[in-house]
């Protein structure tokens, strides 16, 4: 698969071509990497990738889902799972006192999501899969109990239905406000993946900008196949911690760096992701698919999804 990075497959079939992300309202957009001014409409058509420097802008979970899966195939599950505040965490600094519950409410209002991950099932080129898509906008995509629970449920859905699992990561790591509960989500999700592995169901991990900390050091790095979008920050130590402790500007540890060092399988351009995933699902799950595809697609009809496909 490493070849993919250098030699992206070109597909023109309308079936595999990703549709443009939704308009954002502005006429122009400034690339946060190369500072190029981009025409919003062009930029959106280009799947929010900078046409000059190839910077892949962050996508919301729903944008990512729309990019990856067959239209109207996504069924969201457990959208109502929310974080609670198990430690009664209050952030106290010189000029600010903020309770974690307040922060959660603000984020829910501002982001329009209940948590930093959206899970459910969908099809890619009619191939069913379970998915968990993280959204960096919600407290930096950090993993607390709710995120850990939802990701675990997505993996367990894969085990139960015998369908491949895709997790798309975008996270600053474990959520500090939930203390040790957050750390233990690393063990919880990894244990679920170990069970998925025993059931011999493939797990595809997609790393997007940024994937750092406890998320990288657990499920993100455990994929049977690990893909990354170009230029995504992918590291163990987030830039904020490096700056505080080593007093140096953090080095650029990105998708290409981890590919070079043998940590991931391929860097794939956003427009090629859906097709790459479809090919992988076909290659990795012949036995599973033939048996379950039909059955599962039927099953979706009577599924307990909370939200119709987008």
């Amino acid at each position, binding site marked *: 698969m490493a070849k993919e990075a250098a030699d992206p497959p070109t597909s023109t079939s309308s079936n595999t071509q990703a549709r443009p992300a939704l308009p954002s309202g502005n006429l122009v957009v400034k690339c946060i990497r190369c500072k190029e001014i981009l025409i919003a409409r062009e930029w959106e058509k280009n799947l929010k990738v900078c046409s000059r420097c190839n910077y892949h802008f962050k996508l919301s979970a*729903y944008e990512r889902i729309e990019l990856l899966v067959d239209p109207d195939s996504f069924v969201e599950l457990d959208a109502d799972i929310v974080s*609670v505040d198990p430690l009664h965490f209050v952030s106290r*600094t010189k000029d600010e006192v903020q309770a974690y519950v307040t922060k959660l409410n603000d984020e829910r209002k501002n982001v329009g999501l209940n948590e930093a991950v959206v899970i459910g099932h969908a099809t890619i080129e009619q191939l069913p899969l379970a998915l968990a898509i993280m959204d960096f906008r919600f407290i930096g995509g950090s993993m607390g109990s709710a995120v850990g629970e939802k990701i*675990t449920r997505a993996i367990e859905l894969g085990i139960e239905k015998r369908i491949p699992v895709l997790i798309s990561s975008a996270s600053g790591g474990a959520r*500090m406000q939930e203390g040790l*509960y957050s750390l233990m989500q690393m*063990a919880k999700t990894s244990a679920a993946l170990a069970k998925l592995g025993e059931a011999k169901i493939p797990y595809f991990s997609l790393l997007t900008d940024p994937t750092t900390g406890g998320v990288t050091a657990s499920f993100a790095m455990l994929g049977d196949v690990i893909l990354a979008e170009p230029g995504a920050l992918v590291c163990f130590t987030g830039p904020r*911690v490096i700056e505080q402790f080593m007093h140096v500007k953090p080095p650029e*540890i990105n998708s290409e760096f981890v590919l070079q060092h043998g940590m991931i399988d391929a860097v794939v351009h956003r427009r090629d992701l859906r097709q790459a995933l479809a090919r992988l699902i076909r290659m990795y799950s012949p036995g599973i698919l033939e048996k379950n595809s039909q059955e599962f697609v039927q099953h979706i009809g009577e599924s307990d999804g909370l939200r119709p496909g987008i």
Partner: protein
Amino acid sequence: MAYDLEFEKPLAELEKKIIALQRKGDRLKPDEYKQLQDTERELRRRTEEIYKNLSSWETVQVARHKDRPYSEDYIRLMCEDFFELHGDRSFSDDHAIVAGPAKLGDEHVMLVCHQKGRDMKEKQFRNLGMPHPEGYRKAGRLMQQAEKFGFPVICLIDTPGAFLGLADEERGQSEAIAANLHLMARLQLPIIAVVIGEGGSGGALAIGVADRILMLEYSIYTVAMPEASASILWRDKGFAPQAAEAMRISAKELKAIDLVDELIPEPLGGAHHNYRLAADNLKVALLKNLAELKMLPVDELLERRYQKFRNIGKFGIASESLTAPY
């Protein structure tokens, strides 16, 4: 000497008094003798009182005390035999992880431990107890070996965290940690993890996925060291004490919310006041838990371990559905 932490000042004063009186030896007058006894009693009482009410940040200081026993101290005091094994068989040997087969009571076990250094030279040698990826890979290698030969695994956790360097990123610190989480979740043997000092972040959890999670009474276990959390939350590591309190990282607080299974009592004033007693307490707890775990058939052991971690986490169900996309 023994009481040198900020909050131990009253204890240090009492201790100074005691030492002054003890110096007199035989020349001690009867009333001075009584004074000595009273002061000693007072010291015990005050120590008990202070240690019963340690805050999170104070516990951090005890857990990091320069004289606190480290893994090798416990191994020396607990085990009849220990043969240290080295290397990850692919890159290097990491001195922040000490591991190998050991005899504990009548049990043959595989020990996998963080090791800190005491003086400057040893601190450097042990890299402050912060493992590189090769340390975790050595740990993983020996845990797999333990599975092959049927040795239960005992992990002693004492690290500020995995090392954070460019070379560690190059060699896959994240992958090394994740691989151990994955391995330990399904290892077909009892695993006991004990936090003996600092349980810092993924670097601690990487040898911490276990059937039983125990903590010494004045140890800490945290998603990130208070300094790191402070820099993540407030971009200033000076807020470490606030972060420690807010995250409730002391053993006692974590036991109260059932994130750890058992606290192992420490000698009065912390483990560094009595290595022998601390090691005895640890050994008793290990053997007791080991005996319990060995009773379980492997299938049940693994299912219980899975459920143990599966059930960690507190979340709610939203009353109003917030599902407006985009």
